[in-house]
């Protein structure tokens, strides 16, 4: 049994509970053991770096200090958490003042950063460690050409991500392996607006609308995501955004792990699929 450490991040314990449920379900099926980092804290997302750069290093760095050196790579399901954790590792190598600042502060509080684990997004781990061949083997219920667009979002692929920053491929390949029909989509790594949805909705609504509108135009039945923030913006705000821009047609926004679970024979409720604000029932009818 392969073992990894798991950093769920705040969303997966609340607004993205469905993501957490499907991650655990799918990895359980694949006989992968996940051990949650003890006493982890918020990564600071895009907010703390806007206010205080050193605090923005300290928050993700504490999680790296709490993770164990020898319990496997650190698996992160959220794009923003993934980027924050990778970025502090990058910064500690590149910038002496950051390295010294973090080490000095940690030395006063009993934290140590020796032997940090490798940080990897969940999708990255599935593609590289499990592989498409194994995924195909696990498919018991093909997705029967359900038409999807894959939406990777920003921080999975930029600036330190593992896939092409302009035209990411991993999510497409994984969805095809499950039997979905992946449609061409130009906004795979466009931005969902992130927290601007709260502070400046006029900006974020336009960004989300552009993504949803192209997805509808190419004929997608669902949008597949890898990030709880993207999911929230595209799913929970979709009604308001459709009203504002006079759009018709609801698009379910589903986590890639939820579709993996379905293809592997798990039930909708095991995967939290009923938690979508936009219902997936119609889009998933043909899978049964």
């Amino acid at each position, binding site marked *: 049994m392969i073992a990894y450490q798991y950093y769920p991040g705040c969303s997966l314990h609340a607004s993205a509970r469905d993501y957490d449920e499907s991650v655990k379900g799918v990895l359980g099926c694949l006989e992968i053991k996940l051990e949650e980092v003890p006493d982890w804290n918020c990564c600071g997302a895009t907010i703390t770096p806007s206010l205080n750069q050193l*605090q923005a290093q300290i928050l993700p760095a504490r999680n790296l200090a709490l993770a164990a050196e020898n319990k496997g790579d650190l698996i992160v399901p959220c794009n923003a958490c993934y980027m924050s954790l990778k970025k502090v590792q990058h910064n500690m190598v590149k910038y002496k003042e950051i390295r010294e600042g973090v080490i000095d502060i940690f030395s006063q509080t009993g934290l140590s950063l020796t032997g940090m684990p490798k940080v990897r997004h969940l999708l990255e781990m599935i593609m590289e460690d499990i592989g498409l061949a194994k995924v195909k083997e696990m498919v018991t219920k093909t997705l029967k050409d359900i038409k999807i667009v894959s939406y990777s979002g*920003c921080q999975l692929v930029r600036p330190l991500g593992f896939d092409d920053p302009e035209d990411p491929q991993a999510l497409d390949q994984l969805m095809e392996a499950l039997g979905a029909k992946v449609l061409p989509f130009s906004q795979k790594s466009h931005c969902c607006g992130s927290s601007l949805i709260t502070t400046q909705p*006029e*900006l974020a609504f336009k960004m989300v609308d552009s993504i949803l509108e192209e997805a509808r135009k190419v004929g997608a039945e669902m949008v597949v995501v890898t990030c709880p923030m993207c999911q929230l913006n595209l799913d929970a705000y979709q009604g308001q955004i459709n009203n504002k821009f006079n759009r018709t047609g609801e698009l379910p926004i589903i986590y890639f792990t939820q579709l993996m679970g379905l293809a592997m024979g798990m039930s909708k409720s095991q995967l939290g699929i009923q938690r979508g604000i936009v219902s997936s029932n119609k889009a998933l009818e043909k899978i049964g």
Partner: protein
Amino acid sequence: MFEDFTSEIMSYPGGEKITACMQCGTCTGSCPTSHAMQYTPRKLISLIRANQKDTVLKSLDIWKCASCYSCTTRCPRGIKFTDIMYILKNLAWKEQTKKENKDITGFYSAFQGLIEKRGRMNETELIMKYSFQTNPAKLLEFAPLGMKMIIKGRAAFIAPKVRNQDQLQKIMKLAQERGGE
């Protein structure tokens, strides 16, 4: 302490390469919110290099960055403009030019306050705190969405927190003090 604003920006991690800008505008063309900015990324770089510190830090445009890193990835000169936006926001926050728009800054202070206290984020509490800090009538705007999230079991009612709050609060305080040097 700094000769000028350009040198100040260059002294922070991520700001080093700003003088390599050739004003090609790839950043602005890549930015999903530049259409709404008076000072777009390309113009902001130009203003920084002209040492127009006040104009830059008082501009609400710096708070329109969604941190999508398109500009950083595409810049042909290797300028990390997303990081420069973070530097600008840090300075604006420190120098109290932040009171221009409570809708924006109220969210940042509400988020940061919750993290400094408890170490984990609770979205429900964040929205409530944000609304009270800006305009309590916002709660009415958020209510329909909040209800849906509750019905779907996607809202947490017990505020999550780290166990070792003392440690978390201490490292955040030490970072705050050090950053203020």
